[in-house]
């Protein structure tokens, strides 16, 4: 069972998830960033659900394990659509929303098809839990690549909207931090402190997004020269 440190980090993370939705509503940006808020709201509900299942069934139970991985897929799909919300905001002046939607559906379908293909190759019996786990992992990597591509687009288009830049950058830091922590855990499996770092990293995204909604107004602009020098 998790100790008081893990429970405290989890609680902070859950409170921050609610804070994102509250701050977005307070700054009248709820509808503009609707999918980001849906993701955060869903994260909060999943956290509450996971706590209920964990306290009833225990850490080693199949019930918690299944609930955790199934809800993780749900959250990863929601995060994927939140990322598309950011894409549509970055490219809103180019009027390519229709193509973005089509590309998103193709990519999601392609990832699901690829995940199914991997399971089909590796075992004769197709288990739904195996598919859910594989799809969740694959979507994580798709999200990672899409986030870096979006950051490249933000630089190339010389985006100046401070809040949008912070939201995208926070997502990039979030994905990168998890990837770095994952690499460190594999390199140094005996360092137990890294296991505390993983849930702590989960607080990065809600904290950064809550800060963006609370402190950075929609009209605030960054000077392009401060962002980066990109030759056109």
């Amino acid at each position: 069972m998790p100790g008081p440190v893990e429970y405290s980090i989890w609680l902070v993370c859950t409170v921050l998830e609610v804070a994102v939705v509250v701050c977005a509503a307070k700054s009248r940006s709820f509808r503009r960033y609707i999918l980001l808020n849906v993701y955060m709201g869903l994260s909060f509900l999943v956290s509450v659900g996971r706590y209920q299942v964990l306290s009833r069934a225990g850490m080693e139970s199949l019930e918690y394990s299944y609930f955790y991985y199934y809800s993780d897929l749900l959250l990863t799909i929601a995060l994927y659509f939140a990322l598309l919300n950011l894409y549509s905001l970055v490219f809103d002046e180019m009027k390519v929303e229709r193509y973005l939607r089509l590309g998103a559906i193709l990519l999601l379908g392609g990832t699901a098809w690829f995940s199914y293909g991997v399971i089909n190759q590796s075992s004769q019996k197709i288990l739904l839990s195996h598919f859910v786990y594989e799809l969740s992992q694959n979507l994580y990597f798709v999200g990672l690549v899409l986030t870096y591509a979006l950051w490249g687009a933000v630089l190339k288009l010389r985006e100046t909207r401070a809040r949008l830049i912070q939201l995208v950058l926070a997502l990039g830091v979030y994905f990168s931090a998890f990837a770095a922590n994952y690499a460190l855990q594999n390199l140094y499996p005996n360092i137990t402190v890294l296991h505390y770092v993983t849930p702590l990293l989960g607080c990065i995204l809600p904290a950064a997004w809550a800060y963006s909604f609370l402190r950075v107004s929609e009209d605030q602009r960054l000077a392009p020269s401060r962002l980066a020098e990109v030759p056109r």
Partner: protein
Amino acid sequence: MSRRLTAVAFLAMLVLAGAMGLKTVVVAHSGNSVIMANGGAPQPPRPPQ
């Protein structure tokens, strides 16, 4: 119009290929551990396969 649709499909497949390539590299250098990036809940062992 169809050229744009082809470009969208090509880009989507390019992202998918890049992401799966990255995943293959990462998984090849790791044990049986998983990468999960949603919330602060403690991670349970994987369900039996």
